[in-house]
Every structure is written in structure tokens, then in C-alpha cells.
């Protein structure tokens, strides 16, 4: 076909353009209007989820937030709705629960037998006092969605399951106070979870100084969860809470530590902390089961107690894009 033929054919198609324009007006304008109406009315405008990477985490927060909003509006009738529509509030890996502030379970979509029980003294497999951690998280301003990390199990199974739960406090129209929570099995490790732990530990150090170290080092405290544990050191590299073994066994020169490609993350981070209050640093680590190096990140925060500067930090995995 000659080029001129092609142009003619092309023009013929464009002759129908007025018809296309009509089609555009009848179909696309309503679609755009619909978009403006539905798309712009943000149901979650007040809910900041920008700190999370994973959809699983965002979905859980939205799920619990929706339920909390509903309970706050409907009160007792809302609770009744939860009881009558139990299956709508659980999936294979997530579920919803409602407790009063004394830790009496008023609704549990996954384990009905817990309802009407007081679970204030509940302790997980690793010794974490789940109730105490939850009540503290609800009051914690650095933890806006009141995250708590612990181990649980799936009914009918016999092995512990790592779990992360978020919570929202509500006051019903009848004036009753509850908190609505939702948990997810096998959660992804969000950088935000580590940020909360480190910021809380830094605040405790600013308040109590070296006396805070015992509490922060306690693996059952809310400063440590799963593989994320807090460490602390002075600007000269002197370790106060070790990230690994006690340094009395083997001297650890934190500032000299390097990653798999020779990068010195502590040197960079400490330099940046001279000007900023906190810093994120990425580094590479070996994983025996993966051919490439894995990316990890470190969050360091500066704490000052009686003019003594202490750096508090932790390490976690970074999300792995495909």
C-alpha cells in the first residue's frame, strides 16, 4: 500500500470524528463526573497511611478504622450488628475484636469463646503481656494506630503465629469507652513498626537515662518484637545496649562495622545525626538462601539525657520490589 493510500485511509477514519465526539460527550463526560463525585470524596482522608509500604498493613488499618467509625456512630446497635454479622469481620488472616478499657472482650469475630471473658492477664508464648502493651499503645502518641506485636495461634492449629494488631479507641453515643482492634497473621515488617519502637525507646532514655536500658533490653517489652531489637551507643561508638551479643565477649567497633559491599552505615548515620534528630540508612546483607544481597535499613534516633548524647536504633528488612 502506498503512503498516500494510507493517509487517505487514515483521513476516512477521521471523517467519523464528529460521531466520536458525540460518543465522547455521552460516555466520557458522565464517567469523568462520576470519577469526580466518587473518586474525590475520600473516605479515608483523615487517615494517614503514607508511612506504610504494604497493602496488607494499609488494608488492616482501614478495616479496623471503618469498624471503629461504625461503632462510634452506632454504639450498642453497632455491637449487635457485629455479633449478627460475624463472618463479615474476619478473613483467613485477619479478624476484628472489641474490648472495653478493662480488657473485657465484648466481640471477637475469630474466637467467639473469648467473648465476655476478661483477658487483662493474657501473656503470649514469649512472655509478652498483650493487654498491657495494647493499653499502652492506645495512649502512645508516637504510635498513631496503636500497633502491638505478639504471637497468637490459629484455632485448631498447634504452633505460634506472629501477629501485628492495630487499634482505635472509641466512645459510643451511650458514653461507653471501647477499643476496636484487628490483627493480621504473619505480618510484613513495616519500617514504621521499627520507627515506633526506636522513638519510644529514645523518649524513655531521655526520661530515665541509663536506668531505661534494662526495660528496653527486655525481649518481652514493647521495644522489641520479632527480629527487631533496640540497641544504643554513644557518639564515640561505645555500646550501651548491644545489637548482638554482649560486647564483653568480643569487642564490637560499631563505627567500623561495614555491610557486604564495604559500606559503613554507622559512620554515615552518625555524621548525619550531628545535624538531624533521626536518620534512615540502607545497607546490604547476606542471605544464604538468596543469590543476591538483601537490602536492610537502620533507623537511628538521637536521645539526650543530662547533656549525654545517646544514639538509639534498630534494624529491619526493606520491602523487596519484584
Amino acid at each position, binding site marked *: 500500500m502506498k503512503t498516500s493510500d*494510507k493517509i487517505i485511509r*487514515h483521513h476516512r477514519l477521521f471523517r467519523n470524528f464528529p460521531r466520536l465526539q458525540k460518543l465522547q460527550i455521552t460516555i466520557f463526560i458522565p464517567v469523568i463526573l*462520576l470519577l469526580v463525585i466518587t473518586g474525590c470524596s475520600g473516605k479515608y482522608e483523615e487517615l494517614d497511611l503514607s508511612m506504610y509500604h*504494604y497493602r496488607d498493613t494499609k*488494608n488492616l488499618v482501614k478495616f479496623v478504622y471503618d469498624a471503629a467509625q461504625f461503632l462510634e456512630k452506632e454504639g450498642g446497635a453497632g455491637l449487635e450488628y457485629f455479633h449478627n454479622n460475624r463472618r463479615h469481620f474476619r478473613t483467613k488472616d485477619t479478624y476484628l475484636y472489641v474490648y472495653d478499657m478493662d480488657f473485657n472482650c465484648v466481640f471477637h469475630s475469630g474466637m467467639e469463646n473469648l467473648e465476655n471473658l476478661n483477658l487483662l492477664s493474657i501473656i503470649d508464648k514469649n512472655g509478652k503481656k498483650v493487654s498491657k502493651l495494647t493499653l499502652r499503645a492506645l495512649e502512645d502518641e508516637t504510635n498513631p494506630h496503636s500497633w502491638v506485636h505478639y504471637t497468637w495461634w490459629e484455632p485448631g492449629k498447634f504452633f505460634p503465629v506472629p501477629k501485628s494488631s492495630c487499634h482505635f479507641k472509641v466512645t459510643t453515643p451511650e458514653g461507653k469507652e471501647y477499643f476496636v482492634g484487628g490483627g493480621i497473621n504473619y505480618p510484613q515488617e513495616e519500617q514504621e513498626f521499627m520507627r515506633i519502637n526506636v522513638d519510644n525507646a529514645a523518649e524513655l532514655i531521655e526520661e530515665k537515662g541509663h536506668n531505661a536500658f534494662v526495660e528496653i533490653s527486655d525481649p518481652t517489652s514493647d521495644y522489641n518484637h520479632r527480629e527487631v531489637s533496640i540497641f544504643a551507643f554513644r557518639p564515640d561508638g561505645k555500646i550501651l545496649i548491644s545489637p548482638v551479643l554482649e560486647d564483653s565477649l568480643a569487642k564490637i567497633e560499631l563505627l567500623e562495622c561495614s555491610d557486604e559491599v564495604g559500606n559503613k552505615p554507622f559512620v554515615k548515620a552518625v555524621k548525619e545525626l550531628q545535624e538531624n534528630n533521626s536518620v534512615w*540508612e540502607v545497607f546490604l546483607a547476606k*542471605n544464604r*538462601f*538468596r543469590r543476591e544481597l538483601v*537490602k536492610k535499613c537502620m533507623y537511628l534516633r538521637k536521645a539526650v539525657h543530662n547533656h549525654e548524647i545517646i544514639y538509639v536504633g534498630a534494624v529491619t528488612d526493606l520491602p523487596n520490589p519484584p
Partner: protein
Amino acid sequence: MSNKQRKFEYSVNEVPPPGQLLVLSIQHVMIMVVSLSIPILFCSQLSASMEFTTSLISLSMIAVGVGSIIQSVGIPYIGSQYLCPNLCGPSYFSLSLSAAWLGGLPLMRGLIIVAGIVEVALAPIVQKLRKVFPTYVVGLVVATVGVSIIKLGTTSVFGLAYYGDAIRSVDILIGVISLFIMVLSNIWGKGFLKMYCLLVGMVLGWLLALILVPEYWYNLLAVKNSPLFALPSFGPEFRGITIDLKMLIPFIVIAISGSLKSFGNLLAAQKISEPDLKEVNFVPIRKGLIADGISTAFAGLIGGMAVDTSSSNIGLAGVTKVVSRWISVVAGAIFIILAFSPKLITALSLIPKPVLGAAIVFSGCFMICTGLKEMFSQKWDTRKTFVVGISLIFGLSTAMLPELYARSPELIKTFFTDPLPTTTILAVVLHQIFNLDKMFTKEKKE
């Protein structure tokens, strides 16, 4: 002319009318945009400033644009003169990140320049390998080029942002509908609908995504805050070029692997542009590899990320039967212009992942089938069965069983990286081994 009428809408040296040339180029730019996620991800992992990120994206886009132009326009000794645009090379990503952590951008730049020089040096050697690439091995390499985009295409159609994360059914729906629009426009469409099938699918898919997922709608707000025009700023990070011997070997290995990948892409581009060739013409392949190496070195020199030839764009050219190399030239020019407009870059980078995934799968189909057709166009025998079978089994295993190779001996770990280089190396070696008797007989006769 009648032959051309049957095979192409626009053949390799034909220049489409300006309007069509522009729209066809934009269609290719839409696929090239996929690779912009690489500098974005790179900067996010370095916790880089907004200014640094914008500059790195701009400089990488300039390198991609220049690379696409020199690959297709054809200057003496350089450029394949096929429709074979460039993109930011994903194979260099991890090593570039390591280099940047170790020695900042100066080290990354130095090592990318070295990688480019290695690619240029390898080009004449490839031409000498004429005998080790019989037609069925060429077909296998081209098919594997298509196979190598399976991971990116599938994860994108599913809208996956991070491994292990939730997948939304609505994303799969958007991806599948976009793919069907592209395919059906290509099968049943005529005229511009057939020619612009990918563009039509992407635009409609994007609209569908905006209707179904409010998140995509909100993301568009970012466009409002970006300036329409901005020059890349050369901050202190962009000054200096260094080299570290520790990182040199890994970069050379990746450069060899990148050359093999570009070799496969250029073979595919040749098959698509000149289907009547009885044997591989290694001259444009060599010139193409030189252009690829120069583009990579240029990227390092100006401070952008390493570039690579794009399999998806070659596939798109094959599907639409529009193989004019001038499309690649204009697409390159558009990429350079876009590099100075953060607003447009932001808008394009917001194309929903499932829609991009559909475009990648769409173009991958053609690569796989062109390769298979080429492979089986020859008389088949047992030797070929084993060459192809063994190469494919071990080549694909690198993608299917990465954890196996994580524990394998260092030599295997170094060369068995991706399906494409692994399959190519194995096919070439096995073809020689399984045909030793024939070679001896031939030599005896001579």
C-alpha cells in the same frame, strides 16, 4: 513493494507521515516509561533528596534518549539501524546501588563507564562468533528474550508492588481488560486501531483504573505539584568519577551478561525487521552492540543510570508490523524533551502497573513466538532437541529456582544469572559439543 505490503505497515527504513510518526513514537515511549521506576527506586533506597532524584531521572532519560537515537539513526560504525530503543537497564540496578553505597555517585559513574567500554570491546568478538550461532540457536535466543520479561510482565499485571504483599482482584481485572483491548484491537482492528493497539489499550486501561481504583485517581494529584519545566541540577553528588577494583569484576560480569541480552534483542530486531534474511547479518548486530556500549558509557559520563536495549519495544514493533527505525529516533527525542519536564515525567510514571504489565505481556508474546517459529523452521534432529532442551531447562531454572543457585558453586553462580544469558551460553557450548563428530568429518574432508 508488494512484499512490503504483506509484511509491514512501515518497513525499517521507511519514514511514516509526521503525525503518525509522532503517535507511533509516543506508543513506544509509553513502554519505555516502565523503566523509569529504576532510578525512582534507586533514589528511594538511597534516601536521596527530591532534587537528586529529579536530576538522576532527567539524566537517565537523556541517556536513554541519546542511546535510542544513536542505535537507530545509523552513523558510521555505530548503531544497528533497527527499531531498538533503550531503557534504564534493570540488570545493572543492584550493582549500581552497591556502588553508590560504597563510593557514592562518582563510583557508580566510573563503573558504568567501564561496563560500557567492556560492551564496546565485546562487539567485534560477537561478529566472529557467526559459526556458533546457527539459525535454531538464534531462534532460541530470541524466544528467551520474550521469556525473560515474564517476571516483570506478570508481577505488573497483578499490580504487585512488593513481594509477599496483597494482590487486588481489581488490579488483575484492569490488567486483563487492558491486555484484551490491545490483543483484540490488533486481531480485529484495522488502520490506526491496529497500528496503535497498544496505545489504545493503555489509555483505556488507565481510564478504567481511574474509575475502579480511587488510589490511582489520588496519585494524579502529584502531577499538580511538579513544575512543567526544570533543568537537572548538578549537585556535589554528581561531581567526580572514581573506580574501585573490588567492584570492577562484578560490573564486568554484568556487562558481559548485558551484552548477551542486547545481542538477543538485536537478533530479535533483525528477525522482525528483515525476516527474509537467510542467515544472521552480524554487521548491524556488532554496530548495535557498539551503540549499546557507547550509550551505557555516556549514561555513566553524564551521571545517569546504565542503559540497555528494550525487549518490549522490539516485541511491540513486531506485533504492530511497524518497524520503522525513525520511530525509535523520535521516541528517543521525546524522551530527551520529557527529561526537562517533571510534570510530564510524573504523569507518565503514574500509569497503573497492571496497564504497564499488559503492555509488557502483549509485546512479549510476539518475541516468544518469533523465536519459536525461527527455531522450528529448520529441519529438526536429536542433537537440536538436546541442545534446546538442556539449555532451556537450566536457563529457565535460574528464574524458577533462584534459591538453588544461591547455594551453588561460585563459578555457576557467576554465569547462571538469568534465563537469557544462561540459555545462550549453554546453547552455544552444547551445539559445539554435540556436533563435534560433524566438525571432525568436515575438517577431514577439507
